[in-house]
């Protein structure tokens, strides 16, 4: 599924070179649920951006579903992001002044899916994250937790190979965080591959594997013995708490 070999990312600011990633090897198999942890500045976001094909490594090989994407550029990366990757951002990154359902339709728009099918699938995705009654709301009419669930719906609507989330609960209170984790656990149970970045150990406990970063290197890689089960109050309780 995901295979990284000697991934380096070096930022050059004038004469000063910062190695955000100093040679990372990582393998993530299909259906895994991984948490990436580590102190601030250890290269987690850099890693996620490379995994999500938003950024390219300075050096190294990145095989996604067997194809090397490390050397891909521009429009090729756009296509890979569109087809294979569902990315969830800490800051939600929804289009403002645009209805939830239209936000969720967006990746299908660029995939060339027809208008009717787009709408049906977007509504289904929003229903699956418990927002079936909020499809015509605009981002600023939704709570943080609801916005993040719209973002999740947008990430999974295209059935991507992997779902990536950089601090998906970073802006949420503990209750909304747990709701979001419950959705991830359910997607994982359905066989999706999920990688999240988090600072919070109790969020990482919802996953099945924890990869620890320090100074651009992998410091530890362990299996979570007994993953906690997230309480999914929200599912079935349409709309969720305000």
């Amino acid at each position, binding site marked *: 599924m995901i295979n990284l070999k000697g991934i380096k990312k070096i930022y050059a600011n004038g004469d000063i070179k910062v190695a955000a990633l100093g040679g990372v090897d990582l393998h993530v198999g299909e259906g895994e649920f991984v948490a990436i942890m580590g102190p601030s500045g250890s290269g987690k976001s850099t890693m996620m*951006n490379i995994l999500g094909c938003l950024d390219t490594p300075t050096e190294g090989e990145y095989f996604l579903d067997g194809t090397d994407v490390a050397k891909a550029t521009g*429009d090729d990366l756009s296509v890979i*992001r*569109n087809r294979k990757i569902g*990315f969830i951002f800490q800051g939600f990154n929804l289009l403002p002044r645009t209805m939830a359902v239209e936000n969720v339709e967006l990746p299908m728009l660029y995939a060339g899916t027809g208008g009717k099918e787009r709408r049906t699938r977007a509504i289904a995705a929003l229903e699956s994250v418990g927002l079936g009654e909020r499809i015509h709301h605009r981002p600023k009419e939704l709570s943080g937790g609801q916005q993040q669930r719209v973002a999740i719906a947008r990430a999974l609507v295209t059935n991507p190979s992997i779902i990536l989330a950089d601090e998906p609960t970073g802006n949420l209170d503990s209750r909304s965080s747990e709701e979001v984790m419950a959705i991830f656990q359910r997607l994982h149970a359905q066989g999706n591959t999920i990688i999240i970045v988090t600072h919070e150990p109790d969020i990482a406990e919802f996953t099945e594997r924890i990869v620890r970063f320090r100074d651009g290197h992998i410091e530890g890689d362990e299996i979570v013995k007994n993953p906690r089960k997230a309480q999914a109050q929200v599912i079935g309780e349409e709309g969720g708490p305000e």
Partner: protein
Amino acid sequence: MNFLESIRVSLRALRANKLRSSLTMLGIIIGVAAVIAMVGIGNGATASITSQIQGMGSNLLTISSAQAFSGGVSGGAGSSASLSMTDVSKIEVGTAIKAVAPVANTSAQVVLASGNTSTSITGTTEDYAIIKNVTIARGRNITEQDVNSSARVAVLGPTVVENLMGDVNADIIGKNIKINNVPFQVIGVTTATGSTGMSSSDDMITAPITTIQARLIGKKTVRNILVSATSEDLMQIAQDSITATLRKAHKIQEGKDDDFRVQNQADMLEAMQSVTQTLTMLLGGIAGISLLVGGIGIMNIMLVSVTERTREIGIRKAIGAKGMDILLQFLIEAVVLSILGGGIGIALGYGGSTLAGKALSMDTSISLTSVAMAFGFSAAIGIIFGVFPARKAAAMDPIDALRFE
């Protein structure tokens, strides 16, 4: 993403920011409206001057006293008038010359029991109708005898009849009208020619020149002598023979300048047209510059818009938009703004020039080519000035765009 979807996305973005979209369009609207109106008015002026000059008669030569021109006041011929009825009789009808008619004109108040009007009065002779291509609809034309006897008779244009009696076809033959309090008997009515403007034969009274000189002007002045050449080819010969005749009649010595001027209708037409065409081009050029400024306005706003929507661009790219999708979105926005602005501008320009035409009482002509050109031009402006901002947007790196605050 297909083209239709791109258009929909662009239209939504424009609608989301209505005020800014309309203000951006304003530059193009004003530019296009100005081009259309200016060219329309210019063309109208050219056409109306052309028809006025052509309406003066066919193969026309106009003889006037040179002083009338050098003095700058064409009416002040008075004491220095160099044309007389003697000159008229010297110019003989022949192979090159079809008809000769003197003109002494004034404008006057015309009164009949049923109404009054003010119109221009032309004192002339029988041949005037031939030169002007005017036919008599009812009654008769003035005759040589009328001229010799200074008869107080008048031939009316149809507009004059309508103004006096309220009906073009009213029976006015034989009635007595008062022109500046001098009684005249109506002997004929001319056929409508449809010509407008100052030399319209529809809104005019013709009478024997001798009567007009004696009763209305009080001087034996001949303002112009109109000569109709038998054909266009013979105009030069006619002109030369008139010049020779008049130089001899006025006893002008060899080497001295003429004290009269013979003007050729074609020359007048050419001179006037070149003036109005230059004017049209000048006005159109100035309006074109404002169109250019409008285009730069579009580029300016689009650049601001691209910067402002950097995050949006980042989001779109992050979830799979290609460079071309983003490029098209912004390019279409620019083109829609300019085309919409162009359309509104054409409508406004058309309205404006029609109004101006009404005010100046001339037919403004908006040609299809000028509409097509303005439309094409505004679309081109949208593309030219939209490409730069759109390319800037398309070239953005998703990671940098998402980090943009």
